[in-house]
Structures are given as structure tokens and as C-alpha cells.
């Protein structure tokens, strides 16, 4: 594909230097501070922007060439998926719940990241950083588009995909991801880089894209593997940008260390909460599972995150403050989330279900210290209620955390039998939190978080508590998009169509 006829005149390093040198000039009739008004208010001191270099040294010509190649590969497979009944080749339609969450909560996050990097590329004074942010802005837009395009094939056959844009803005679980990106985009450019470039991309996206996409491959979902790996091929560059930016800030001035550390503490915890939903997608929603959330965390959290923070220790950086609490939550969170999703399934634009005996045996084997002790008995009870014709539904609305916006379904780090709940009073108003991590973030910037739009209080303040009106507003079709997978039209259609596809009746 890439035969070289003649040797290039300049080497990679020279080409990169020529690009960045020629784009950077000293302004003569405008003040530099007026051109880059957001570069200093966060307190980060930079003495020499030229010290920042993209270690991949990607120039624009190479960028367009390789991105075009990725797109050609992607669309070849998307076409094949549509032409070959790809929607029937998945293990079973339960799998689609994971995709619906992805489309409603994560793809819009890609679009938000696009907007954020477009802005950061404008606001940073350094040319190397501007170019890398500009490339990342285009990448993130590509991710949103390719994901929506890949999943549109499923929308022709299954429920719950049709209104992802409304879901993104309005449904309670999507506001978790939305508030994460809104929080990052309304911060300054340096904090944005730590939030998305470092905490989200470097520390956490491996957990989202790598084992989950491998899981999609196991479940016969060619479309998702393709958009996942196509997006992830850009992530290696994004992670590297995040890591380079953090090293750059720490090398420029020792005064930057406490500011950077505080952002790492904040954004690790914000990211950990957002990606919590992935734990449930991996442990419960893949009919054919590739590895447990615990196993993925050991590789990409403990081993890889550990290596990263050990390497950064030379600058005085320590692991994020919530690191130990995160570790204590790993063996519990997917079960706590799934129990939450099941009991509030009237309000989700995807299906949940009671795990089968086989599923529960797998969970016991993967979570020997927690599943049988704390969670199997609850599922057994819920199953008994369903068999008796009185399925467990919680029509009460969840108490949301003012920071991460998740229902407070988590337990105390050191006591899995006690729900974790924190509250604080600010200017005479009471605010609730799911964890110490979230409360600390609020206490550090209360004026920001008291402005949060929280979906549960909004249901009362804006719709008078009318759940039917709320469903219309979020474009959720009751009895179609929501509820138990068992008995759903997705289940019925998949079984019927798969039967038709494999027989001549």
C-alpha cells in the first residue's frame, strides 16, 4: 500500500520541525496575551512552548493519508456487515443493550471531546500542541460519526437506538457522561487536557475500548469491533498527547505540580465513575464474555496505571487520591450497577435482565469473594419475585450524586453492606454525594457544581413528576424500548429472524 519510489527529502524529525516552526511566529501588532487570553488564568506557568513536541512527529500530510486508509478499512467492513445480515450474527440480542448505552452515552462524548479539542487547539499558544489538538479534534468527530453510522444498521432492526440524541441530553444515566464532558469543556485548556487527554484517554479508555471491543469480536459484532479498533488506533496518539502535556507542565515550572496533582485527583475519580457503566457492560451484557471487569482492571488499571504513576513519581506526582477506593470498588460495582439498572428498567432505553444460572456461576468464579456472598442472594430473591408474578420494580426515583450524577447505589469502601452517602450544606442548600471522592470535588468548586442540571430533581421541577410525560420528552417508548429483555420485542424479533435466516421455512 505504501511503496516508496524515492527517498523523502527530509526526515521525520525535520518535517515535523518545519511544520511547527513555520506555523509559529511572534505577533507584532497584537499582544500575545490578547491572542491567547485563557493560557494563564489557571496558574500554569510555561516558559518555553517550543519544548513541547509530538513524539509521533505526525505532519498533516501523513495524518490525512493514514486517516483516509482507516476510513477505507472501516467502510469496507460496514458495507459487508450490512450486506451479510450482520444484525443476525450476534450471539443474542441481549448484547445490544451494551451498544445502546454506548450510542446514547459514549458517542456523544466523542462529539463533546471534538468540540473541546477544537477549542484547546485555539487556546494553547504552543504550535506543537495546537497541531496535535487540531488532529485530535478531527479524530473525535470521526469517532462520533463512524460510531453513529456503524450502529445505524442495528437501528433498522432493533429498538432503543432511534433517539440517542434525545437520550444524550435528557435520560438520567446519560447525564453522567454528559456532565463529565461539560465539566471538562467548561474548565480552562490545561485542566481540559488533564481531564480528557490524560485521565480519560491515558488512564481509562483502554478499559473501554480494548477488552470491550475484543468482547464485541467474541459476540459476532463486526460493526462494533471495526469502529472500536478504528477509533482506538487514534487513541494511542491521544494518550501520548495527554502524557506529553502532563510531562510538559511538570517540566516547565515546579509551581505547576500541586495544580496538576489536584486535577489528576479530580479527573481520575470523575473518569472512574463514568466508566463504571462499562463494568456492567462487560460482566453482564456480553452474552459471550471475554474477560471480567476485575481482570480488565488488573491489566489496564493496576498494572498500566501503576506503571504510569511510578514513572511520573520522578516529578513528584503520586497516584490519584481515589485510587485505593477505586480498587475496593472493583469487585462490587458491576453487580451494584446491574441491580440498579434492573430495578429502574422502566426508565432505560435498553433492556436489562436477571442473570441465568450459568451467568451467575461465571460471576461467582470471577468474583469469588463477593458475588455469592452479597449479590447472588439478591438476584435469587428478584428471580423469585418475578416467578411469583410480582417482579421487582422500583418506581421511586433515585437520589443522585451532585457531582457524578449517578444514583447513589454504591457501598462504603470498607463495608459492602452499607450504602455510601455523603452530604454537605452550601449556602443553606443541602447537596448529596455517592462517595468521598465526589464530595471532595464539589467542596473544591461548589459554585460550579451547584449549577448542575440533575435529571431526577428536573423531573419534578420541569415536568411535575409525570413519568409518562418524561418518557415522551426523552423519546422512550414504554413497553418497547425499556424493561426486561425477557419478553421484549428485541428478543422476539431476534429469535424469529435468526430462525428464518438459518432455515427455509
Amino acid at each position, binding site marked *: 500500500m505504501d511503496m516508496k519510489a524515492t527517498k523523502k527529502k527530509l526526515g521525520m524529525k525535520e518535517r515535523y520541525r518545519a511544520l511547527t516552526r513555520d506555523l509559529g511566529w511572534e505577533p507584532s501588532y497584537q499582544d500575545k496575551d490578547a491572542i491567547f487570553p485563557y493560557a494563564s488564568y489557571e496558574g500554569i506557568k510555561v516558559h518555553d512552548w517550543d519544548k513541547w513536541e509530538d513524539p509521533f512527529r505526525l505532519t498533516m500530510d*501523513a495524518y490525512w493519508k493514514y486517516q483516509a486508509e482507516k476510513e477505507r478499512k472501516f467502510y469496507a467492513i460496514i458495507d459487508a456487515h450490512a450486506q451479510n445480515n450482520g444484525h443476525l450474527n450476534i450471539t443474542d440480542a441481549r448484547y445490544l443493550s451494551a451498544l445502546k448505552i454506548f450510542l446514547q452515552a459514549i458517542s456523544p462524548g466523542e462529539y463533546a471531546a471534538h468540540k473541546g479539542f477544537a477549542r484547546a487547539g485555539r487556546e494553547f499558544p504552543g504550535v506543537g500542541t495546537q497541531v496535535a489538538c487540531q488532529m485530535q479534534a478531527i479524530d473525535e468527530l470521526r469517532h462520533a460519526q463512524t460510531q453513529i453510522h456503524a450502529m445505524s444498521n442495528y437501528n433498522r432492526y432493533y429498538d432503543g437506538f432511534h433517539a440517542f440524541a434525545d437520550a444524550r441530553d435528557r435520560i438520567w444515566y446519560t447525564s453522567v457522561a454528559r456532565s463529565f464532558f461539560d465539566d471538562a469543556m467548561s474548565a480552562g485548556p490545561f485542566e481540559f487536557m488533564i481531564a480528557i487527554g490524560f485521565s480519560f484517554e491515558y488512564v481509562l479508555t483502554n478499559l473501554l475500548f480494548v477488552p470491550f471491543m475484543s468482547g464485541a469480536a467474541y459476540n459476532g459484532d463486526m460493526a462494533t469491533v471495526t469502529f472500536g479498533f478504528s477509533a482506538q*488506533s487514534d487513541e494511542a496518539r491521544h494518550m501520548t498527547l495527554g502524557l506529553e502535556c502532563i510531562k510538559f507542565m511538570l517540566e516547565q515550572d515546579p509551581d505547576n505540580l500541586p495544580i496538576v496533582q489536584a486535577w489528576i485527583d479530580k479527573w481520575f475519580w470523575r473518569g472512574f465513575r463514568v466508566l463504571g457503566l462499562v463494568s456492567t457492560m462487560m460482566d453482564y451484557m456480553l452474552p459471550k464474555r471475554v474477560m471480567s471487569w476485575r481482570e480488565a482492571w488488573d491489566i489496564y488499571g493496576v498494572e*498500566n496505571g501503576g506503571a*504510569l504513576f511510578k514513572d511520573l513519581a520522578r516529578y513528584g506526582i503520586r497516584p490519584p487520591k481515589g485510587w485505593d477506593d477505586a480498587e475496593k470498588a472493583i469487585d462490587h460495582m458491576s453487580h451494584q450497577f446491574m441491580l440498579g439498572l434492573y430495578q429502574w428498567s422502566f426508565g432505560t432505553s435498553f433492556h436489562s435482565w436477571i442473570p441465568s444460572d450459568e451467568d451467575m456461576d461465571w460471576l461467582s468464579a470471577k468474583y469469588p469473594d463477593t458475588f455469592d456472598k452479597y449479590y447472588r442472594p439478591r438476584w435469587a430473591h428478584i428471580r423469585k419475585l418475578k416467578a411469583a408474578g410480582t417482579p421487582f420494580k422500583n418506581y421511586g426515583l433515585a437520589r443522585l450524586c451532585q457531582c457524578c450524577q449517578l444514583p447513589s447505589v454504591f457501598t462504603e469502601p470498607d463495608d459492602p453492606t452499607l450504602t455510601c452517602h455523603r452530604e454537605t450544606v452550601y449556602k443553606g442548600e443541602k447537596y448529596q454525594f455517592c462517595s468521598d471522592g465526589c464530595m471532595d470535588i464539589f467542596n473544591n468548586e461548589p459554585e460550579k457544581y451547584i449549577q448542575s442540571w440533575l435529571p431526577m430533581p428536573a423531573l419534578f421541577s420541569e415536568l411535575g413528576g409525570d413519568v409518562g410525560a418524561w418518557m415522551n420528552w426523552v423519546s422512550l417508548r414504554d413497553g418497547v424500548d425499556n424493561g426486561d429483555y425477557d419478553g421484549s420485542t428485541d428478543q422476539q424479533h431476534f429469535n424469529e429472524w435468526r430462525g428464518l435466516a438459518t432455515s427455509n421455512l
Partner: protein
Amino acid sequence: MSTVFIALQANEDTRPIIDAIALDNPAAVINRQPAMVKIDAPDHLVIRRETIEDQLGRAYDLQELQINLITLSGNVDEDDDTLTLTWNS
């Protein structure tokens, strides 16, 4: 000691690249997973253009790796001839 890694899509393009990485990094461990190959190495991993060209039988631009790259870990440095990943240097 920490683990650096690189993960590539499992396909025809990457087969000779993975062989080249194995040749250049005797301490590397190759993990074959569904649809991907993850290569782990202690503290340091080097990818050399020349070794890939020997395996591939044609000229190769190291930046072509971008197409099939899934993820990596470690501090990156790339020039025309090598891409290195390192922790704790």
C-alpha cells in the same frame, strides 16, 4: 520494573510486524487475544523499520503502524528508523 506494551489488530498487515517485534525484543511476551495481539515487555520495547522490512520484503514507513495500532503504554519516541516505548528511563 514496569510493563510497556503495544497492541495491534490481528490481521495480515500486522503478522510480519509482530514477528519483527518478537525478533528485536527477546524479553517480549506476545498475547494473542480475540481480534488483537498485545505485546508486553519489561520497561522497554523497540520497533525497528529495518527488521519489519526484512520480514515484509518491501520498504516500510514506520508511521504505517498508525493504521493497525490499538493502544500502547510507555513514553513514546519515534523517528524514521525506530519507535521506542519506555518506562522508568
